[in-house]
């Protein structure tokens, strides 16, 4: 059915998409749980927050709660609130062990009690490979094919027949500031300071999750499972890009939860879409079954694998939003300091600070430990 959504996206050739202002309707804060325990060494983090109004979305920490983690061997541990709304187990506390079961209880400052069922930590399944293929996709917004890398994964054959996976990804990419600084006027900073701000690496969570199962397969193996697509309409593929895939083995209930999250993202609520609904997690109010509590305490084993790709040799659709001021005569009227670059016409021109400082795009100038430079570095500077 999701397919028909895409079809109807095509039919929008006759139609249109108009941005609207979303209004806050009947906002009522509710508790949200977001956390997990895995077979990797702790500490483990559980975040408690409140839902936020739709046009002011942010994590509103839910503080001063008592979270207790239990395992099925009888051990338990109270988590410490290390920062508002973020609760953490201790280094020496409970460690996730495959085959054991875990649950949490939460008691809030105003005396409400919440609980999850025990969930078993499943056997981890190794990722066979993660790889990218250069392809192109069609988006409703672009009337042409957008080239980019489509990432895929294969898993090793699992030992059990029914495996449920949640795939999360963390992407890291190398990029440079839009322009190279050649002069700086009326600033305490020096040109040398800006040499360090030329090249950055940015690491972030991929804002999608993917799920899969071998429950309906003849062989418990995932092959050529499409994951994340990175298009040439962003700066991500300008130099070098790396994707870390984390494969979580979860139980069927957690799979249903995450699958619904995945669906909510991909269906985009168009024609033929199913009735939208609230995705109910595994946290319940002990006294009031009808209270809506969102989120999931996930028990999973995890394996991970990383892949690097370089800038593809195809056309780019990324447009820099740096404006260049060629009118040198007007320089005196610009606010200081003034950042000068060599413009394409051979003259010097002025740009904003963010155009010569890569950290303005959220990256860091320290190369990550895992980063492997490409042997054949593409010297071509992005325009």
């Amino acid at each position: 059915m999701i397919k028909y959504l895409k079809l109807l996206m095509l039919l929008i050739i006759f139609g249109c998409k108009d941005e609207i202002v979303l209004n806050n309707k009947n906002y009522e804060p509710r508790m949200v749980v977001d956390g997990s325990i895995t077979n990797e060494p702790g500490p483990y983090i559980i975040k408690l927050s409140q839902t936020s109004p739709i046009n002011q979305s942010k994590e509103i920490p839910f503080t001063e709660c008592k979270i207790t983690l239990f395992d099925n061997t009888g051990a338990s541990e109270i988590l410490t609130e290390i920062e508002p709304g973020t609760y953490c187990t201790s280094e020496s506390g409970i460690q996730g062990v495959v085959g054991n079961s875990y649950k949490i209880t939460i008691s809030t400052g105003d005396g409400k009690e919440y609980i999850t069922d025990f969930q078993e930590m499943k056997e981890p399944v190794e990722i066979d490979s993660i790889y990218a293929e250069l392809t192109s996709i069609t988006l409703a917004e672009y009337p042409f094919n957008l080239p980019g890398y489509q990432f895929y994964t294969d898993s090793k054959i699992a030992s059990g027949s029914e495996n449920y996976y949640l795939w999360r990804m963390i992407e890291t990419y190398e990029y440079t500031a839009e322009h190279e600084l050649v002069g700086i006027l009326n600033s305490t900073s020096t040109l040398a300071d800006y040499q360090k701000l030329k090249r950055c690496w940015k690491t972030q969570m991929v804002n999608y999750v993917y799920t899969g199962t071998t429950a309906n397969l003849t062989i418990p193996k995932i092959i050529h499972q499409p994951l994340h697509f990175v298009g040439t309409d962003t700066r991500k593929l300008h130099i070098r890009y790396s994707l870390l895939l984390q494969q979580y083995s979860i139980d069927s209930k957690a799979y249903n939860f995450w699958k619904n999250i995945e669906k909510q993202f991909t269906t985009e609520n168009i024609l033929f879409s199913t009735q939208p609904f609230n995705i109910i997690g595994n946290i319940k109010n002990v006294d009031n079954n009808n209270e809506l509590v969102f989120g999931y305490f996930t028990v999973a084993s995890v394996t991970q694998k990383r892949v690097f790709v370089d800038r593809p040799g195809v056309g780019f659709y990324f447009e820099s939003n740096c404006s260049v001021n060629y009118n040198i005569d007007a320089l005196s009227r610009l606010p200081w300091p003034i950042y000068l670059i060599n413009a394409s016409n051979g003259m010097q021109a002025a740009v904003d600070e963010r155009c010569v400082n890569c950290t303005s795009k959220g990256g860091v100038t320290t190369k990550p430990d895992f980063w492997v430079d490409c042997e054949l570095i593409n010297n071509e500077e992005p325009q």
Partner: protein
Amino acid sequence: MKIKILLVCLFLFVTVDFLSGQGKNIYIKQQRTDWYSFSKKIENEYKIHFYFDTDSFPNIQIVISEDSILLDQLLKDSFSIYGLSISNDNNGNYFLFKEFALQANLDNFFNQYQKNSIGLKNESDIINYSTNGNDYLKTYQEYISENVIVGKNGSSHKNEKVVISGHVLNQDDGEPISQAYLKILEKNKFETTNISGYYEILIEPGEYTLLVNSLGKFEKNYRLTVLSNGQLNISLKTKPFLIDEAVVSASRNHNIKSTNMGFEKMSAVAIKKIPVVLGEQDIIKVALLLPGVQTVGEASAGFNVRGSPADQNMFYINGLPVYNSSHLFGLFTTFNSDAINEFRMYKSNIPIEYGGFLSSIFDIDSKEGNKENFSARGGIGPVSAKLLVEGPIAKGKGTYIISGRSTYSEWLLNQINNPDIQNSSASFYDGLINLTYSINEKNNIKLFLYGSSDNSDLAFGLRNQYDNLGATLNWTHFFSKSFISELDIIKSQYAYTEENYEIDYLANKHSFELNHNEAKLNFKYFPSHNHSVLLGLNVVYYELNYGDFVPLSSESLIKTLEFEPEKAINSSIYIGDQWDITNRFTLEGGVRYSMYYYLGPKTVYEYLPNKPVEIANITDTIIFSNNESISNYNNFDFKLSGKYELSESFSLKASYNRLHQYIYMLSNSISVTPTNKWKLSDSHLKPMRGEQYTFGIYKNFGKDQIEASAEVYYKTVGNLVEYKDGADFITNQIPETNIIQGDLKAYGVELLLKKKSGQLNGWINYTYSRALVQVNNLVTGETNNLGLEYPANYDRPHALNLALNYKITKRLSFSANVVYSTGRPITYPTSIYYQNDIQITEFSMRNEYRISDYFRTDLSINIEGNLKKKKLAHGSWSISFYNLTGRRNPYTIQFRNEDGQIQGYEISILGTVIPSISYNLKFGNYND
């Protein structure tokens, strides 16, 4: 036309060439004159004598419009319209009678009534003068009144009622016209014809004025002299659609006189007038302009009648149920309007012979072939081309019609500058064959074959095909004039196959097939003039094959999931009667008893009592053998309606209708997807039960030219099928675990004002309606929306439709639609929360909010080819603009996460003006 002839008469001296009875030419220069001076002049100049009663004979106007005319013809033309008869003795003596003609000479003198195959005609009983519809008569058609004598003198006593009976037939092809109305003006007596065009009027001997009319036909007017029992067969001429207005409702006065409520009847003529999308005429698009018919959004398959879900409607074409009536993902319907004669839509008070669908019945009649000549027509539009051929078989004993339509939409897709669309393909075709054969006067046989098919292969890895295939065989037997039987054998199949190959290792294929096998026997009995009885029985055998879910290719790792087929047998017996208690008061009622058996082989699961129907609560598995009854439901359906006429043009009606539905569509999407599985009621899923109460006021103004009506309804549906959140029907082998039954409540007021003819005609209607669903199973504790009532997806309280047709000249007309309705309800995001740094939306209560209102204007221009009387073929152009104002009517609101913020977009599907042009061509003239 009228003005032209008048001019000719007034300003030109026309040479008139009279041919006398002996063949002698008589020339006369003549203007418009009166009968006395005309007759004197002729008597003076030629050896001709007129004999008539000078005291009582009216001095009528004589108009000569042609260069040369036979005197006999002129006299006939001039006098028959006043109910006067003429005969001559071939010696120049003309006898003019006011009341009846000399029978001895009549057969030679006048054109005899055209013979037809069905007419149960007894020559001696019938005297019927036919007017030949020449230009002269047409010009003065308001005066046309044929003089007809029924029966023989002296064979009946005065004051003893006699029966006039006969058939009303289409003059163009001799086909019977059902639901034609006959009215005796003096007695205010009203009759309609049955399905074979047959009527009976019980009346005292005497003189009357008889009006006969039917949808899309010229009205006929007779001066009737009734002497004894006798027959009168009547043929009505079709109104050419260009020249005349779109006739929307059933016959004139029908809205007042009939017991029908929530009823619409529309002819092919009216369908043609409505502006279209991409050149395709479409009965559902027309239906959507009628009160009480809603849709979730544009370009979605399925529609909603009086607050019911889409699967509570059923389309029957010539009695054949069509389970998927959408082409091209819902943009068009599978019925080619070229081959449609008319459709009737029942929104309430559903005829007792149609059980099994709670909301509405679309009863479509396809055309029957031309009895006289071979004929063909065709048309091309931006999306499809169509062709229809028809003609007689076995010297007019039978007829055939073959119609087909096919797309060439591929080129259209290739024009669109979007690689995904260019790499997709979509096509459809449909066709029908309708054969009729009249074995003898008492037996008619009809064979109808229908098929439609859709194929699409979409660039993102989804291929599907769905087909409807069906046949009906109908045998009508006339035991007597008042006792008719009809036997129907019906087979309908709907099947689809869907292949999903986007991800190789998950590539899969699944399919579905529904077989509807039915035998139906109806007896129609007219025991007296004020009763019409329908007695019938039918048996439907359903076979639903859920194809296995299988891997599509060798690379696919998909495990085959086996699905068990379903079988059920539903037998019904029903009886209905329409009883005209007095001239003003009519009651119509019916009872239907249905017996439903859900049959094995089947694996049936039992669940913990009072617990949700979930896999976790399964306690037992029972295996039923082939044809073993698994569950059984017996139900009574009722209908009762009454009409009371306060006056000739003012009536009140009320009705109650109760129905049960044993089959429904598995669909949890907001609008209907192109391919859907159907499911039969079983031991867990109870049949849906619908009840509707309706009350209406009907008033006509201006000689029935303007019809006004108000209907109020209240409807409930019990055991409504709803779905659990995130339900999946493709891989779930136990569908009952996805379903939760609830209740639907719908009510509304429908106001309609309709002008049926004239240069400007059309209708406007306003509907206030609500459709509310509640799913709260108190036993198992399962709910949707926390058990609270919520509006259905198609709940649009205010709706206003305007459909207008303006005829500028005979060859040029404009049509326009204006559509307004409240925006449909949606479930709105109310807050945001985070999981794994991903933003998740919390939603409001179900359908708590609405998208903005819907407004659309369409315009079409119809241009007919020249109107020469004799020509080989007639062409017409139709230019349409759908959504003329280009308003972006939102279909839905899309919520997307963009850079950490939820952004909302209103999505409109046909949010721009869509022009189209199509050309239609037929052999013969426009009204043949």
